[in-house]
């Protein structure tokens, strides 16, 4: 097959790659902002090498999941490509916060890794598996948390689309069917290939988001030679009868951490973290209110990543999370109040549902640039958005249990059909005129409900497009195939013409 040649706005990229020959000119003001913030981002990335250059080099030459982080600069470029004016500033600030937090987490993993020598940090680290919130660590001020799995495959794949399938191939070669959840498969591949760092005082495994996670926990536990406990909370989280069991289980986890580390749970410190978490949640509610407006400036991808980070990684533990949220809220309020339109290409407002593909995190950026489809809300971001009690111990533990029960991908994918159907309420709330559903072909949770959702959408005359993807394996469904599915929908159902024809069909399958 003849290689596709880039043209138009894709001309600045190498054929077949998501690597640009030169950067995009966005006008004097925006280009200056881009340049200035780029310098800051380089400084933040450099911290990874500066913190412990020897361990960083050892990790780069040992762990296969480490090298993709060299592509973080390119990832920032991809996610802010569609942003201008205030939106550009917001996107940069969100991405810088995420870069800083991820660098901090990676430095923590490297410093604690006993594979590269004994150290004082390892025994002070509690590992949380999958996307269970580490909020409980707020009650142990002398300990640090590590939410490790996402760093080894999901975030690595977000930086380099080919990072994750290296690990899924390993578990497939041991006989696991390749249509099982790629998220869990990949972490099993990491464990089998002996690429988990050796660290931690104990491990809290979880059943979030689904039973697939429980399966992969067994393989991870075999590799990590640390005591572990299953942080399993009820799937039927709306059922009040499960409350007693859920709270008892959170208490068990606290006792387990106390036994493993010799630390005592400090309620005052915990409530301080809870207050911080509630502040983050309050800011998010205010942002959602503003998102109803046509002048809401926040680009989709940085917003999605920030909120995911807030739920699964920070949960009140990272003080900067609320700080950056407040700053961004002020800018958003200004844009809405003064009716500053920084998303002028918008022709459609969409709600995005389902698990987005890790290898094409910037799909929303492309939707906006090519078709003028502005992602104003992401259903997965609305996972847990209730406030946790700031003074009642039992109520607060119930809040923690609920936070685990409504983790990302759990509430709206495997948490029962009622929760998934919230999409139609959110569709109305955010004044959308279409829905994009990321259809992860390896997620049985969402797969089983596609017919029902399509029927409801048809009854209500809501345009809904299913974008099939393979979560972390672009060889099964490439980025271009994802784009083609969307193009077909826009041509045939929405009767639209593209804003930029050069973005309709291009090859970016080879790298990053």
């Amino acid at each position, binding site marked *: 097959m003849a290689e596709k040649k880039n043209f138009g706005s894709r001309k600045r990229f190498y054929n077949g790659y998501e690597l640009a020959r030169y*950067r995009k000119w966005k006008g004097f003001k925006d280009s200056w902002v881009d340049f200035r913030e780029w310098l800051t981002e380089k400084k933040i990335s450099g911290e990874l090498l500066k913190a412990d250059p020897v361990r960083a080099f050892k990790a780069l030459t040992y762990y*296969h999941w480490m*090298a993709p982080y*060299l*592509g973080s*600069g390119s990832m920032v470029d991809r996610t802010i490509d569609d942003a201008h004016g205030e939106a550009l500033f917001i996107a940069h600030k969100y991405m810088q916060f995420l870069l800083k937090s991820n660098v901090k987490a990676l430095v923590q993993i490297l410093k604690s890794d006993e594979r590269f020598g004994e150290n004082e940090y390892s025994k002070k680290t509690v590992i949380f598996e999958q996307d269970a919130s580490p909020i409980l660590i707020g009650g142990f001020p002398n300990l640090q948390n590590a939410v490790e799995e996402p760093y080894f495959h999901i975030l690595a794949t977000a930086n380099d689309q080919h990072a994750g399938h290296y690990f899924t191939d390993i578990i497939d070669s041991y006989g696991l069917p390749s249509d099982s959840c790629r998220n869990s498969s990949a972490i099993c591949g990491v464990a089998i290939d002996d690429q988990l760092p050796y660290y931690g005082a104990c491990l809290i495994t979880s059943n979030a988001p689904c039973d697939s996670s429980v399966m992969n926990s067994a393989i991870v536990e075999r590799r990590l030679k640390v005591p572990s406990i299953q942080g399993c909370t009820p799937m039927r989280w709306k059922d009040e009868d499960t409350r007693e069991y859920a709270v008892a289980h959170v208490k068990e986890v606290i006792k387990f951490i106390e036994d493993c580390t010799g630390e005592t749970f400090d309620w005052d410190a915990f409530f301080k973290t809870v207050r911080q978490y509630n502040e983050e949640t309050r800011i998010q509610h205010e942002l959602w209110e503003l998102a109803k407006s046509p002048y809401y400036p926040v680009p989709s991808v940085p917003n999605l990543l920030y909120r995911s980070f807030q739920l699964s990684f920070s949960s009140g533990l990272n003080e900067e999370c609320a700080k950056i949220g407040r700053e961004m809220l002020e800018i958003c309020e200004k844009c809405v109040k003064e009716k500053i339109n920084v998303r002028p290409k918008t022709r459609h407002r969409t709600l995005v549902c389902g698990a987005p593909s890790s290898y094409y995190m910037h799909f929303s950026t492309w939707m906006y640039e090519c078709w003028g489809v502005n992602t104003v809300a992401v259903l997965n971001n609305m996972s847990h958005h209730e406030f946790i009690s700031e003074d009642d111990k039992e109520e607060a533990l119930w809040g923690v249990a609920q936070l685990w029960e409504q983790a990302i991908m759990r509430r709206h994918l495997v948490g029962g059909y009622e929760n998934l159907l919230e999409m139609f309420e959110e569709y109305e709330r955010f004044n959308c005129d279409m829905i994009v559903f990321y259809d992860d072909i390896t997620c049985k949770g969402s797969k089983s409900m596609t017919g029902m959702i399509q029927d409801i959408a048809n009854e209500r005359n809501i345009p809904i497009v299913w974008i099939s993807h393979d979560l972390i394996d672009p060889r099964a469904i490439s980025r271009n195939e994802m784009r083609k599915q969307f193009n077909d929908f826009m041509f045939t159902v929405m009767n639209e013409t593209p804003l930029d024809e050069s973005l309709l069909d291009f090859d970016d399958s080879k790298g990053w």
Partner: protein
Amino acid sequence: MGILIIILKIIACLIALAVFLFAVIQAVYWLNIDNKIMFLLHRIFNKITSRIPRDRKF
């Protein structure tokens, strides 16, 4: 007078150096050289890590 000229020369040199550095950084930025270098390094490290013999255990 001589000292003044020397100081002026030093200042001129520093300004020239600052302009030169700024031009270099701008070139790195606009030609996307940072990402190109990272892309090559990423390939090299990927090759190294995929060839390491591992203790595979199921």
